[in-house]
């Protein structure tokens, strides 16, 4: 474990990763992102989540692919993969309609990085999952239902 580096970073307190990296001279300020999108992450319904992302009413696109199982054996860990075939994809967001906070994660895709991410999310119940993609300044969406089941004996 590299305690020294971790402590250095910890000393930064509430500063974001970017601010720290900028402060440490590790990245140029122009690469630094806006702070955590609080309004998007705290949105309680689909409409306000999309609005907070600046997505408005995104169009359906078959070029956005959502890779999830139809049934999750456990809602604590639901694998979600998103692939965008749209040129100049710059952002990918994953939303779970029936979670208390819809937006699960948002990825910024710099040039040279594939528009293809995979992560794992929690789902409280069976719900639609949305993948929202920003490409060439426009927003596109695709959705898929994932059923959440109860696996064990419940004891």
């Amino acid at each position, binding site marked *: 474990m590299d305690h020294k580096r971790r402590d250095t970073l910890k000393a930064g307190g509430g500063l974001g990763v970017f601010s720290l990296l900028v402060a440490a001279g590790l990245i140029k300020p122009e690469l630094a992102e806006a702070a955590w999108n609080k309004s998007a992450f705290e949105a309680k319904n689909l409409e306000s989540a999309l609005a907070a992302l600046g997505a408005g009413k995104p169009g359906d696109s078959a070029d956005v692919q959502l890779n999830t199982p139809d*049934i999750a*054996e456990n809602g604590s*860990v639901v*694998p979600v993969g998103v692939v965008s075939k749209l040129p100049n994809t710059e952002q990918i967001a994953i939303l779970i309609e029936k979670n208390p906070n819809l937006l699960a994660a948002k990825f910024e895709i710099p040039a040279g990085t594939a528009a293809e991410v995979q992560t794992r999310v929690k789902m409280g119940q069976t719900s639609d999952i949305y993948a929202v993609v920003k490409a060439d300044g426009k927003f596109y969406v695709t959705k898929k239902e994932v059923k959440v*089941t*109860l*696996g*064990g*004996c419940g004891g």
Partner: protein
Amino acid sequence: MRKTLGIAALAAMLVGGAQAQSTADEIAKYREMIADGNPAELFEMEGESLWKTPRGPKKATLEQCDLGQGPGVVEGAFARMPRYFADTGRVQDLESRLLTCMETLQGIPASAVVDGDWNKGERKTMDALAAYVVTHSRGQKIQLDLANPQTRRMYELGKRAFYYRSGPMDFSCSTCHGEDGKRIRLQDLPNLTHKEGAIAAWGSWPAYRVSNSQFWTMQHRLNDCFRQQRTAEPEFASEVTVALSVYMAATAQGGVLQTPGLKR
């Protein structure tokens, strides 16, 4: 793949119809998708660091711990456990042997683990240490020394404990783990009385459990089996837990370890 076929075949056989088939296929897809990137690796890293960190009243590391292959040898040790240890005069599983090492090398009393709580303090340390040790037997064949009379005695006791019915629900281990192709709710139940099922179980514990984000040793697994069986609580590293481990490992003899596993 064996598991995938098992649940698919079973669902088709019992329920028939497309729905059950697709349920089985989708659960198989779910398992495949989470198989890559097992968070158990995080516990293994922590365990390696703990193994090499001086701890306890004696401020010693565990690097001289003898898991049966000589002091400090971790490679392949778990594949040969449980085994008889002459210095303690007992058959020990991985966890009970780690207790011995913590006590003798580091001066940490066994009671710190035995009387502790899951996921806390020295029991949590034990989880990480186990993750580290079993990773170094991954891909190796289960090779118990069944010629040893003490190990054989534990096998006989473990087999009988497996069928021992008691408590308000009249359950034994065999209630759930005595037949092929059964499941509780959606959870496949390995048949621990046959080689294939025993390999699937013994060969994939300890494991990371996605349902609670915890790393569970076989001690923890067995403890929770007995909880659901509605018995009294087995003591950590008690004779019954080692005996059942010998029974499972002996039944799985020759099978390949996939430790640490990833579970629902």
